[in-house]
């Protein structure tokens, strides 16, 4: 059993610094509006879970946080998203640099068709973050260590990343994203392709990672949201219906729609 995701009773937690802030964020795919005026504070060193039925806009919102929607031609984002008080949609802002600060882990593990070592070394190399082999070795080791994968792969760093099991591949992708030392990690259904044991390991890892990073996770599993997060936001029909401390959302939500969703009453 995982014992992570204990609810944070620390009153100081409520005053945690806001790392990212969404203000009146609206997203359109062509004429269709996918998100309506979302206001959400992402607190530092906190796991924020976004839940809601399919098509509710939670992934769309997540993708706004590092401008992944830019690559979709018909997609238009309105409103402001601040990272440390700075608007990330400023045209002058370099998205490559932004995505190094706000990393992402996807639903399906997607290691590069390269060796385990090169998967993790890829980011530091293209961002020119290390000088010399020994420094890069160290970053690769630390990242794999933090992702809880080092012990399993230390003797096979030259083997292809795609040869690992699904759970290991996902942890490799997490190692790859933390190798560039991001501040925020976005996770889109990171466990949906994994078995319960591999899922438990990732959940344990998420809880450890929040010491150093700020995490936003989209999940279809409400139990997972309850286990790993301290804050939970519920999306429905493109609206952020309710956001609050995870223990409050799962014991006594304010909004009837949240209540209906988490108790399985949505058609």
């Amino acid at each position, binding site marked *: 059993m995982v014992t992570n995701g204990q609810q944070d009773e620390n009153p100081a937690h409520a005053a945690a610094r806001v790392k990212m802030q969404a203000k009146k964020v609206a997203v359109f795919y062509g004429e269709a509006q996918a998100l309506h005026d979302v206001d959400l504070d992402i607190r530092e060193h906190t796991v924020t879970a976004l839940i809601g039925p399919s098509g509710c806009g939670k992934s769309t919102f997540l993708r706004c946080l590092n401008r992944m929607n830019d690559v979709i031609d018909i997609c238009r984002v309105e409103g402001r998203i601040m990272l440390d008080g700075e608007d990330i949609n400023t045209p002058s802002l370099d998205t490559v640099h932004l995505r190094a600060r706000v990393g992402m882990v996807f639903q399906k593990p997607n290691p590069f068709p390269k060796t385990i070592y090169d998967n993790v070394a890829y980011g530091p190399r293209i961002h020119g973050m290390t000088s010399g082999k020994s420094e890069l070795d160290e970053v690769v080791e630390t990242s794999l260590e933090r992702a809880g994968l080092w012990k399993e792969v230390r003797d096979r760093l030259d083997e292809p990343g795609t040869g690992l099991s699904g759970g290991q591949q996902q942890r490799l992708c997490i190692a790859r994203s933390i190798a560039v030392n991001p501040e925020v990690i976005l996770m889109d259904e990171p466990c949906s392709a994994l078995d319960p044991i591999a899922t438990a390991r990732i959940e344990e890892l998420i809880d450890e990672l929040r010491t150093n990073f700020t995490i936003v996770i989209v999940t279809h599993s409400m139990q997972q949201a309850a286990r790993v997060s301290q804050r939970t936001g519920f999306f429905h029909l493109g609206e952020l219906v309710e956001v609050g401390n995870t223990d409050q959302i799962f014991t006594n939500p304010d909004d009837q729609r949240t*209540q209906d969703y988490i108790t399985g009453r949505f058609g």
Partner: protein
Amino acid sequence: MERTVKAFDNDLDALKSAAAAMGGLVEAQVADSVRAVVRRDIDLAARTREVDERIDDMEIEIQDLAQRILALRSPVASDLRAILGALHIARDLERMGDHAKNIAKRVSALSTVAELQGLNGIVRMARLARSLIKDVLDSYVNGDTEAALRAWRRDEEIDEMHTSLFRELLTYMMEDPRSISYCTHLLFVAKNIERIGDHATNIAEIVHFIEEGSRFAESRPTSDDASVTVVDSTDREQGT
């Protein structure tokens, strides 16, 4: 709104029905135990004590059902409160049953006494306790927090009756030492009824928790001064 998984609703309905049925049994048991005292009916007292075993079994059935739902359905929010609430209600009902059993146990001792004083007070207390039990159980079945709150406030009346009956029985004992034996038994009966009322107010609080996810805003009423009541000889001379 209807739930996608209907079997879950059936489980919760079954749990609530079981708790309500247990409540009905306890309500009748309380009434019977006091009736046995008033009539000094040893057979009725024996039957009342047997019912307690059935009540204990029902609590276990409710616990098993709740455990199964918790394990299989991972309930949250109002569903979780409904299950926790049913468990707590079953526990309070079981305690009420124990008190009723204790009342019934005193019948054999009381049956040797020709004439009992103070029974009217017992009957009045029991009548009120019974209506309190009925009202909190109705409020549970109907999810009616207003009715629960009204019942919860009425426990104060039982406490007041208990204090006044306590004084009355003390007075009888001072007047005639031969009454000490039966009056002591009646004091325990009154205390048991008073505790039954307390458990009924617990249930009212649980109903509020199930429906609203919070406790009553006001603090619990209590007017039970029996524990600090003293009747001295001056009182008796003044005829109080």
